[in-house]
Structure formats: structure tokens, C-alpha cells
């Protein structure tokens, strides 16, 4: 029996590949299996190879699997491009329609199944994906009845007949495959799952849900891959809390509109990817200088420029920390899982308001678009903290002097009144200003205000929850692996294998990348013989940040991948061994 299974479906974009994976995994999720999906797709609408690789397990999994058990192919390209991932007792099932050819150099079993033909017989070729799902079930010995709920949900509003037809298609695929199957597939059969209901969502859903839970009322955004889903979720949900999404004319408008809304006292934000973030840099500086809360989500994708818009990368780190001219306090958070995406988004809004500064929540394509089983989210852990917001009780001043919105305080945070609040009138400007917001060029004032603003970062590494996620069993490790965002899962799996080979490995995943939690990570670096920073980029950006803050330029090595694909555990295992 397999502990886990890796299944992939592939074909041309626009042919229903996505829904095949979707239906298959939804059903498995409902049985209580843990899933981890990754979609390979191109920057075009129809055509071009796409595939969806889904890992199924009875335990939590957080990485794309190294290899593959079952490959479902809707075209020859899918076979050619992916068959090498199959291990020896893997299986290919391919639509007879394209006359599939089995590659010579594989031990995997090969079955041509008339997906399209059977679907057409049932009424429409569109159901070929259902046939493929059924055939997959036959291999892993899954009772097709589990699909009823899912199919009803998806096709229910089209009527009972459609539901029935689709269930039939699944059943036909199952039956056909069962009949053909002449290989021993016991190694591909999963033990029963725990039957727990768990959420199954992409990282962007988790982030969007986090924003909604944090009390967002206005999202201003411009579409872009791989961020658009955040906007699309909230378009549906914000009206339920009297709020809305505005699709702006560009990202500059999105960021500045969000600033305006935050200034006026609501929680508002925007989400984009690299090109949009580059355009927002001036706005982010305005937020920092005027101390107006602002949350911006950056779903990283392959750069630079338009780059590889549908591919995984983690190359915006430096630009997010250091982008915008001049110096502002800014917080950059990098959740590693959908769960963290949810909680950290809420925390991003809290920090933005408590510290009155821009917070960039960094995600990456693998996290944002990968569909994963998510552990229950605990609403009781959610709290909304608005910091020094003052909405009433301000003493009126006879002399019409302004409210000291930028009062120099010990923690750098000043009381904040919002438009509409009587007695709270003040001026806000991106020009250097005095305590009331009046422009000032006085050197002493400049220094006081600059120091005040920068002071906000002093405590942040202390108050942020788990700035470094650590899995460090060893007082003295042979190797410390460091990563951020979605690489964590692959690192954890690599650790297990390296440990099995007798290596002592610790793992530190940086969740707060700016301000950098030097003190928290330093002991781990010092106690490790060797340090490797695992990043989906070409220049080792996180490694640079660590060197800048913690030193040890010699000891810190990089494991890099920048070909558009996520790390698989074996990449990290191999590179780690090479380093030692």
C-alpha cells in the first residue's frame, strides 16, 4: 500500500484539463486525504501543454512529488514531456483518440483508453475528463460513488440528467479500466483516509479569505497573473459586508486608491505581481512617508519584466524590501503555506494599522495557485488590532492648530485620527513635515521625524509571530537549510531523506523577511557546520539578506533554481550533498 500517490493529468490548454484535476482532487479531499497540487500552464488562452500534478496522501504533504504514479494523457505531448517522471511501476492512461505512442524507455504500464469515444457515446465529448477520472479510480481502487457529491455541486444547476450523465461517464471509465487492468496496482492503492472535512483551496483563496476576515472593505486592483484570483474571490464576497472591489485603470491607481481608503479609516489593499509592484513603488513610498497603513500582496512569478508569467519564482525579494526611493519603514512578510497565508494576511493588516506603514505580503506562484488541503483555520485566533486609531474624544483646540498626527513618540507610532473625526484635523503630506503634518525643512525636525518613523521597526522582529519557522532537532547540525515562501515543503522532505542518510539537518524558514530577524536566526547559523539557502531565483537574494544582517559570508551557500519550476525534494537532497 502506498502512503501517498502522485497523479498527473495533461493536455492542451482550454481542453478541460483543469476540471479533470479539480474533480478528481475534490472528491479525494472529501474523503479526508491531504492533497497538494501544482499546475503547469502557459501564458496563452487556448493551446499549449498544461498539466496538473496532484499529490494525495493520508498525511499532510507540502511539496510537489519527485516522481509520478499515474499519468493521464489527453495528447502525445503530455506523454512525451512527462513520462520520465513515472517510476517503474507507474501507469500511463491515454486517450485512444490521439493514437498514443508509448515511449520506449519506460517501465511504466501503458493503457490506451477511449476517453473521448466513450464520452461522445454518452452524449458529449466534453465528458472525456469524467471518463478519465473514472479510469483513475479503477487504478487506485476508489469507489466512484464518492464523486456524486462533487458532480452534483458542479453540475447541479444544469439539471439532474447532466449530473447523471457525468456520473455515468465516471462509471464507464472505471469499468473499462478495471477490465483492461492487468498490472499489479496494489502499490498504488491508498489506505483509507480519516474522513475529516478539510478545506481545499489555492493560496490566493487563503489570502483573500484572510483579507476578508481582517475586515477589508475595499480592494482596488488591476488584473495580473498570478494574483487575479484574490480579486475574483473578493468581488463575490465583499458586497456581503457592504464593501466592493474596484478594478482600476492601472496598478498606480490601485495602490493610491487603497492608500486613500486607508487614510479615511477603512481597511483596503491591493494585490499584484512583479510588473504591478514595480509600478507601485512610488505609492508605497507615500504610504511609508505619510504613515498611512497599506497592505500590498505580491504573488511572485517568473521575472524579470514580463518574464515567465505563469511560472514559479521567488525573485522579487530585494525589490520588495528595497524598492521605492528614499527610506521608509516597511514590513515584508513571506508565508509558506496556505494556512500561514490566511493568518499572515490578517497580521499584515494589523501591523499596517498598528505601525502605520506599508506591509508587503509576499507569496509565490506555487503557493498562490497550487491547490492544497488546508488544516482547519481557527477563528478564535483571529483578532483585529487597529493600533492608535482615534475616532472620538479629541479635545478641540481653540487656536485651530492641527492635531499632532505625527507626534514624536517613544515607539515611533503616533495617534491617528481619520477624516470625519472632530478635533482631529491635520495635514498629511509626502513632503517632510512637522508633528502636525505641516511641511518643514528644519534639519532638527527632519531628524526627529525620520528617527520616529524608522523606530517603528525596532520591535517588529519581537512582536511578529514566529518570524522564523524552525524545525531544528539538532544542537549542532551538519547542515542548516533556509528558505522562504513555498519551498518549505520540499525542504522538509529533503531533510527527512538527508537524515536517513545520516546527516543532521535543521530547517529555518524565514517568515518575516524585513525587518530581518537576525537574532532569531543567528544561533541556528552559528551552530550549523554548513548553511544552504534554498531559493527559486538566480542571484540568491535571501542569502544576500542573511549575509548583510548576520554575516558569515563564507559559510552561507546557495541552492538555486530559476528555470520556472518549483523545487522537488530530490533537487535539494542532491544539491545539499554536493555542498557537503
Amino acid at each position: 500500500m502506498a502512503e501517498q500517490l502522485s497523479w498527473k493529468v495533461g493536455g492542451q490548454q482550454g481542453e478541460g484539463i483543469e476540471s479533470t484535476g479539480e474533480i478528481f482532487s475534490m472528491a479525494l479531499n472529501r474523503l479526508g486525504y491531504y492533497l497538494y497540487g501544482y499546475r503547469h500552464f502557459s501564458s496563452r488562452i487556448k493551446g499549449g501543454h498544461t498539466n496538473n500534478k496532484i499529490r494525495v496522501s493520508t498525511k499532510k504533504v507540502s511539496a510537489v512529488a519527485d516522481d509520478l504514479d499515474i499519468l493521464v494523457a489527453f495528447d502525445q505531448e503530455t506523454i512525451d514531456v512527462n513520462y520520465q517522471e513515472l517510476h517503474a511501476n507507474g501507469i500511463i492512461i491515454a486517450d485512444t483518440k490521439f493514437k498514443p505512442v508509448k515511449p520506449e524507455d519506460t517501465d511504466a504500464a501503458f493503457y490506451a483508453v477511449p476517453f473521448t469515444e466513450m464520452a461522445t457515446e454518452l452524449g458529449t465529448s466534453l465528458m472525456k475528463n469524467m471518463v478519465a477520472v473514472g479510469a483513475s479510480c479503477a487504478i487506485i481502487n476508489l469507489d466512484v460513488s464518492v464523486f456524486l457529491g462533487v458532480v452534483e455541486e458542479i453540475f447541479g444547476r444544469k439539471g439532474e440528467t447532466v449530473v447523471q450523465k457525468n456520473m455515468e461517464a465516471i462509471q464507464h471509465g472505471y469499468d473499462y479500466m478495471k477490465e483492461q487492468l492487468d498490472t499489479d496496482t496494489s502499490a498504488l492503492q491508498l489506505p483509507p483516509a480519516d474522513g475529516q472535512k478539510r478545506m481545499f483551496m489555492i493560496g490566493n483563496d487563503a489570502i483573500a479569505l484572510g483579507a476578508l476576515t481582517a475586515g477589508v472593505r475595499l480592494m482596488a486592483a488591476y488584473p495580473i497573473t498570478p494574483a487575479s484570483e484574490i480579486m475574483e474571490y473578493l468581488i463575490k464576497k465583499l458586497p456581503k459586508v457592504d464593501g466592493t472591489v474596484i478594478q482600476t485603470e492601472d496598478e498606480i491607481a490601485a495602490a493610491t486608491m487603497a492608500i486613500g481608503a486607508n487614510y479615511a479609516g477603512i481597511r483596503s489593499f491591493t494585490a499584484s505581481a512583479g510588473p504591478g509592484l514595480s509600478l507601485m513603488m512610488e505609492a508605497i513610498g507615500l504610504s511609508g512617508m505619510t504613515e498611512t497603513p497599506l497592505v500590498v500582496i505580491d504573488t511572485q512569478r517568473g521575472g524579470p519584466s514580463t518574464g515567465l508569467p505563469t511560472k514559479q519564482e521567488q525573485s522579487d525579494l530585494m525589490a520588495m524590501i528595497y524598492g521605492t526611493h528614499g527610506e521608509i519603514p516597511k514590513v515584508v512578510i513571506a508565508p509558506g503555506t496556505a494556512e500561514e497565508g490566511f493568518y499572515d494576511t490578517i497580521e499584515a493588516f494589523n501591523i499596517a494599522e498598528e505601525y502605520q506603514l506599508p506591509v508587503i505580503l509576499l507569496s509565490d506562484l506555487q503557493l498562490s495557485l497550487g491547490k492544497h488541503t488546508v488544516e482547519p483555520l481557527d477563528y478564535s485566533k483571529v483578532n483585529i488590532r487597529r493600533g492608535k486609531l482615534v475616532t472620538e474624544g479629541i479635545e478641540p483646540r481653540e487656536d485651530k492648530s492641527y492635531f499632532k498626527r505625527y507626534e514624536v513618540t517613544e515607539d515611533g507610532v503616533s495617534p491617528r485620527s481619520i477624516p470625519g473625526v472632530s478635533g482631529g484635523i491635520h495635514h498629511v503630506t509626502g513632503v517632510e513635515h512637522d508633528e502636525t503634518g505641516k511641511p518643514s525643512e528644519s534639519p532638527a525636525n527632519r531628524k526627529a521625524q525620520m528617527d520616529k518613523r524608522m523606530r517603528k521597526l525596532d520591535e517588529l522582529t519581537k512582536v511578529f509571530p514566529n518570524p522564523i519557522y524552525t524545525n531544528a532537532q539538532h544542537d549542532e547540525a551538519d547542515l542548516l537549510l533556509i528558505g522562504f515562501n513555498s519551498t518549505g515543503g520540499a525542504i522538509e522532505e529533503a531533510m527527512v531523506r538527508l537524515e536517513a542518510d545520516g546527516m543532521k539537518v535543521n530547517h529555518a524558514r524565514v517568515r518575516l523577511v524585513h525587518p530581518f530577524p537576525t537574532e532569531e536566526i543567528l544561533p541556528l547559523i552559528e551552530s550549523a557546520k554548513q548553511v544552504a539557502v534554498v531559493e527559486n531565483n538566480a542571484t540568491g537574494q535571501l542569502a544576500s539578506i542573511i549575509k548583510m544582517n548576520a554575516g558569515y559570508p563564507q559559510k552561507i551557500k546557495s541552492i538555486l533554481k530559476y528555470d520556472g519550476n518549483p523545487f522537488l525534494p530530490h533537487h535539494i537532497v542532491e544539491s545539499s550533498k554536493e555542498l557537503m
Partner: protein
Amino acid sequence: MATATTFKDFRNNVKPNWCPGCGDFSVQAAIQRAAANVGLSPEKLAVISGIGCSGRISGYINSYGLHGIHGRALPIAQGVKMANKDLTVIASGGDGDGFAIGMGHTIHAMRRNIDVTYIVMDNQIYGLTKGQTSPRSAAGFKTKSTPLGSIEQTLSPMQLAVTTGATFVAQSFSTDLKDLTAIIEAGIQHKGFSLINVFSPCVTYNKVNTYDWFKENLTKLATIEGYDSSDRQAAMNTLMQHDDLVTGIIYQDTERPSYQQLVEGYSETPLSEADLDLGAEAFDQLVKEFM
């Protein structure tokens, strides 16, 4: 609303740093008067401005004020209004701010029709950066950046506004304090976006479009018999015939609802007063949708 206010309530302690004689002084005064005339109290007014000499205006009015970045007064102002529908939101800035770097936002704010009053102090030049050509400069206009005279077509904000579907399009002259005040009042009261372009002479860098020049060249729409500001095509024709040099309310559409009125389910009360807590029940419901 609080007790009746006068324009003095909208004065603060800050002395404007504009050059003596700058047209912007009167614009400031007109805003203060209009605000008082429509019965606002200072804390219910938010003035959002861009960067330029004119952009300093948000600091000279006793109200909430935000002086943002160059060209972005409008998106900021729209965000403010969306957050708190009870505020009166005035966006303001220069012709460079609104018609050069901010051109895109201006067009889209007009299309969107969120209830913001946008006042442009149009001096046909870049004041703060010491006298370069603006999109409003006339052909042949000589500046630091066009020593041989501008060779680009002068932008017509009024014609643009009319064709873009703006619901309130007006033009005024900064010395016509009474007219200007009345127009700003009408703009504030208009439900939807209003664009008010104000000829506000730069006495330091623009030696062509002076107070005298405008006095000689402007025609008040009020003097054109039978002018009907609800007739879009007539508005367009009048602008073309007068080379845009008219003052008054050029076009107003009182029927099209504002953006906020059109947003499905948009709050009837200021969003800024909402309780942010979702509640465990609503949260559970959302979570279930992913199961």
C-alpha cells in the same frame, strides 16, 4: 451637521507660500467660501491634492487634507470617498498634475463617476519646477523646456470631459470669486464626479496667459443666450466655437447615478464606521465553501 459655518472656519494658521499675485489664492478662498455656503463643517471635508504649487492647497484649508504624489490626487480621493461616503471630497492640483502625468486617472475618474469634486488650477505651465511647458500650454508658447515654442497640440480638458461622459464639467477664472464659488458649490452638490477647470494665472512664469489676457478672451456662458448645459452636443459645439475659452457650467448630467449608487450592496453608512469583525458564524460559512 454642526452649527452653521463661515468661510473663516475653513481658514487655518498656515500662510500659503505661493508668490504674491498667484491665481491659486482665489481658488483657495473660493473653496473655503463654497464649503461654508453648502454648510459643511471642517472635519467633514477632505481636500486631496497633487504635487505642484497648486498642490499645496490642501495644507491651506482648515479641513482634513492629504498632499499626495504627483498626478495621483484622483485615485487617492476616490479611495477616500469610497471609504466614507459622508465626507465631501475635493481633489485638486495643477494642469501638469491632472493632464500630463495624471491624464489617465482623470479620464477614468470621469468614467467611473465617484462623487469627487476635482478642481484643477490651470496656469498653462509647470509652476513648481520653474516654468516648463504643460499639456495646456498654447502652441508656440516658449518655456524653459520649449525655448523655441511648444509644438504639441494644446489639450482641451473640457472637450475631453464632455466626450468621456463626465457628468459635471465646468470652467472658471480665479478672479471671478463669486462665479467660481458658485460653481464649486454646484460641483460639491452634484452627485457624481465633477471637473472644474480654473484658469489660475502663474504670475511668475506665464507672461502670456495673464489676468488681463483671460479678461479679454473669456466668455461667460451666462452671456450666451439659451445656453443649455444639459445638451451634450451643444456643449461640445460651443467649446469648439469658443476655442474652449468659456466659463460657467458647460455640461451637467443630473440623471446618471454616481458610482456609489450603482455598486450592488454598497454600504448606506460610511464604511469607515463599520465593525470589522466578521463573526464566527459568517466565517464558518465561508470556510465551508472550500470543503
